Structures are given as structure tokens and as C-alpha cells.
């Protein structure tokens, strides 16, 4: 029983993450910008690191502001690049942003003590120790962003599926894209604080990859992603508690296993139905 109470906050945190990332993941997969969240997370982390070096206390509003400013700049950059369409592949820009943000953080933090541990922490996070206030704060932010996305769902979905058509219809594509990237950036900023980069990345792409195998409709895909994410979170947290191993990596491995199983089952069924 004690274990159950202890596991309640991490479980709630997982569900919160599954909720918002299950949705954003579909956008990300449709746009083919798989690594965007790692880049965004790293940019936000660079803001935090900079604040840390400037001796601003952790948890101070200024730290948050720093991250937000960097995320804003990145969102503008991504939106502008997509709109102007120079001869550059979007994934390349995302990757380069990721690499530069990470290594810049390494340069800045080089002198601080315990930087090895800091990097490890940033990757695996500490979802087991997450507190209710943090979860509720994130939940409120996600709810607002989710609401905005629900109200303007035609715009956002249109942008992810048929960018050119929207552009011709006269939508201000660049600004809508900016809002898309900004909201995604804010979500990732909060999620990374709860779960670490690894778990956020996995929740973003794996559930929506699973749902892509079953359906093409947004409503079904979101639902399937949520179910898969929830099941795996329960299983992963339970096992990590019992075996006393870090929960983030375990949840991620189970998610991947789930995806592989689904692919295998699907390919067997496909073979049965249509022998080649």
C-alpha cells in the first residue's frame, strides 16, 4: 500500500506526459521532424544553464524566462525556415540546433562542479521524485495549450498535413507555425523538468508511431497513443519499483518493445491475409 502511494505522483506525471505528447507526437511524425523535441529541450536547458552560471537561483522566475526567450527564438527560426524554404533540409537545421545548444551548454558549465552528473540527470530525469505541485503546474500549462490546439485544430492539423494548400488559402502560415513550435517548446520545457529528455522523446514518437500502424484518423490515433502510453507506464513503473532500477529508461524500453511487438503482429497478420 505504501508503494502504491509512493508511486501515485510518478504515475500521474506519466499520464500527464502521455496525454499531451500523444497528441503532439502525431504532428511531429506527420511533419517528419522527429528530433524537434530533443532540440527544443536542449535549447530550454541551455537557458537554465545560462541562468545557473549567472548565479540566478534555481526555480527563480528569471530562469524560466531565460528558457522561454530561447525557445521563442528557436520557434521563430524553425517557422521562418519552413516558410522561406531555402534549400536546406529541416531535419538538418533541427539537428544542428540540438548539437550547438548541447555543446554550448557544455562550454558554459565546464567550470561548474559535478557536470557529469548534471548531464546524466538531464537525460534520465527523476520522474520517481516528482512532486504534486510540479505536476499540477504542468497540467495547467498543458491544458491551456491543449485548449488552444483544440480550438484552432483545423489550422494546426492543416499546417501539419497540407502546408502548401494552407499557404495558398491565405493563412498566415508563418505565424501559425510559430505558435505551433512555441507551444511545443513550452510543453517540452515542462516535460523535461518532470521526466528528462529520454522519456519525453519516447513518449512523443513511440505512441504515435504505434497508432500510425493502425489508423490514419487523428481522433483514433490520439486514443490509441494514449492507451498504449498508459499501459506501458503502468507496467514500466511497476517493474522499476519492484526491480529497483531507474524508471525512465525502463518505461522507454517497454514502449519500444510494445512498438516492435505491434509491428511483428501486424506483419504476421499481413502475411496471413495476403500470402506473397
Amino acid at each position, binding site marked *: 500500500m505504501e508503494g502504491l502511494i509512493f508511486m501515485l505522483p510518478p504515475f500521474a506525471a506519466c499520464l500527464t506526459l502521455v496525454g499531451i505528447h500523444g497528441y503532439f507526437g502525431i504532428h511531429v511524425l506527420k511533419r517528419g521532424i522527429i528530433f524537434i523535441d530533443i532540440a527544443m529541450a536542449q535549447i530550454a536547458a541551455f537557458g537554465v544553464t545560462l541562468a545557473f552560471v549567472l548565479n540566478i537561483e534555481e526555480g527563480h522566475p528569471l530562469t524560466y524566462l531565460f528558457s522561454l526567450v530561447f525557445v521563442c527564438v528557436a520557434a521563430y527560426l524553425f517557422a521562418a525556415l519552413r516558410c522561406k524554404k531555402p534549400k536546406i533540409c529541416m531535419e538538418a537545421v533541427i539537428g544542428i540546433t540540438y548539437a*550547438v545548444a548541447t555543446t554550448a551548454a557544455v562550454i558554459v558549465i565546464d567550470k561548474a562542479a559535478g557536470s557529469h552528473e548534471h548531464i546524466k540527470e538531464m537525460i534520465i530525469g527523476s520522474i520517481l521524485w516528482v512532486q504534486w505541485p510540479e505536476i499540477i503546474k504542468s497540467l495547467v500549462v498543458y491544458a491551456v495549450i491543449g485548449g488552444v490546439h483544440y480550438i484552432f485544430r483545423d489550422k494546426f492539423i492543416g499546417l501539419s498535413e497540407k502546408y502548401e494548400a494552407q499557404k495558398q488559402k491565405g493563412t498566415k502560415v508563418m505565424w501559425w507555425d510559430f505558435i505551433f513550435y512555441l507551444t511545443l517548446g513550452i510543453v517540452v520545457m515542462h516535460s523535461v523538468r518532470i521526466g528528462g529528455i529520454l522519456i519525453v522523446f519516447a513518449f512523443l514518437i513511440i505512441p504515435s508511431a504505434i497508432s500510425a500502424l493502425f489508423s490514419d484518423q487523428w481522433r483514433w490515433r490520439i486514443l490509441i497513443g494514449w492507451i498504449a502510453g498508459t499501459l506501458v507506464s503502468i507496467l514500466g513503473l511497476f517493474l522499476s519499483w519492484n526491480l529497483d532500477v531507474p524508471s525512465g529508461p525502463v518505461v522507454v524500453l517497454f514502449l519500444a518493445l510494445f512498438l516492435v511487438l505491434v509491428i511483428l503482429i501486424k506483419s504476421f497478420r499481413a502475411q496471413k491475409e495476403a500470402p506473397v
Partner: protein
Amino acid sequence: MDTVYFLAAPITASLLLAAILSYFGNHILTRGIIFIDIAVAQVAALGTMLGILIGVQDGTLLSTVISLAFTLVILSLFSLAKFQHTELSREVIIGVIYCVALATAMLLVDAVQGGANFVQKTLTGSLLWVSWNDIVQMLLLFSLVICIHAFFRKQFIALSENSEQTTFSSYNRRLDLLFYVTFGFVIVQAVKIGGIFLVFMYLIAPATLAQLYTDSWNKRFVISFVTAMIGSLAGIYISYQYNFPNGPTIVCALGALLIMSILAQQKRLV
């Protein structure tokens, strides 16, 4: 004079890496599998880590063999499978491979002595401490790879340009596998010295910059090569002047070069 002597090895190493990786970058970019090397590098690091866990020291031949074996298995799967599942793009598969390798490494990190240190080392590398021995090894390996690539030059370019297609003759399949195997060898060696991010940047940034200006493969090879060289030298110089770690500084220098040329390009278009 002492500093020149001290920096000679890192400079040589970074130029070698710049040369080979900027070449591969053009292929990777054309194939649209930008993140393959981060995934592969992570798999290689996982192999080294498993080696440490069963008592094989980092830096020994056996440890290299283990991480090489891991890398080659993953790359062969990637090359041979030519994923029939059209619902899932190759980038998604790469992302999942990366995720799994990173997650497994993180599970092991506490079991391995100095695990956290090792994680940072795979990210940022240890260019400053490279030995002449390593450099000679690299030189031999890279020359071999370059020879193979020079020999199959036309075929490899054709494969990269048609990487979307799913039906290949068995000859092309084997060539594709050869491409990935040579790539795997280079990445394992390069990551050991430069770290994941430097390798990634050498691959992607110069090639992206080259693509801004031309479509011709030969010109792209030259532009990306020159860019990588300038970025390395500038990075090492700045890192020496201001006492920054040099791998990360080269990464930032390459990033700055790319941003400047994008801006220049935009202006020219307007």
C-alpha cells in the same frame, strides 16, 4: 612552441575527422537520414559500456571490436530491411533505435564504474587527449575507406540519390550494405575521439552549407571539405585562446559558419 607541439595531435585528429566526415555528410544528407549517426554513435557507446561491464577495458582492441559488432548489426539491419512499413518513416526507426540505445546505456550507467563520466565522454569526446597512435590508426582506416569509396564512387552516389526506392537488385543491396559498413567503421573510430556531437556536426553542417550553394556532387565535396577545415581551425584557435573545451568549440564554430552563410544567402535572394 610548446603549445604548438601540444596542439599538434588534436589539430591533426580534427582535420582528419573533418575530411572524412564532411565527405560522408553529403551522402547522409542526400539520403535524408540526418540522425543515423547519433543513433549509431549511441549504439557504439552502448557496446563499449557493455564491454566495460563484462571486464573489457575501454580503449583496448576487444572493446573496439565489441562496439563495432553492435554498430554493424544495427546498420546491416537498417540497410537490409529497407523497411516495408510505409506508415513508419526511416527517421522514426532511427529515433526509436536511438531511444533504446540511450535508455539501455542509462540503465547500465550506475552499474559501470565511472558511468556518468563515460556518458559525458561519449557526448563531448576527448579530442585534446588524442594520441599519435590513435591518429595513425585513424589515418589507415580512413584511407582504406576512401579508397573503397573512390572505387565505387558512381555507384554510391547513385544509391544515395535513389535511397527512397525499395526494390534493389542484389548487387545494389550488397553495395548499400558496404556503404553502411564503411560508415559504421568510421563512426565508431570517430566517436571514440571526437564525441557524438562533434561527429554529428562534422557530418551535417558542412554538407548543409554546401547544399545551399550547389547541387553538383563534386562541388559539394569541395565546399564541405573546406568548410570543415575552416571550422576546425577556427574552433581550436578560439578554444585555445579562451580556454574552452575544444570539441564543443568546434561545434559552435561550425554552427556560426552555417548561420552566417544562410544569412548571406538570404540577402542575395532578396
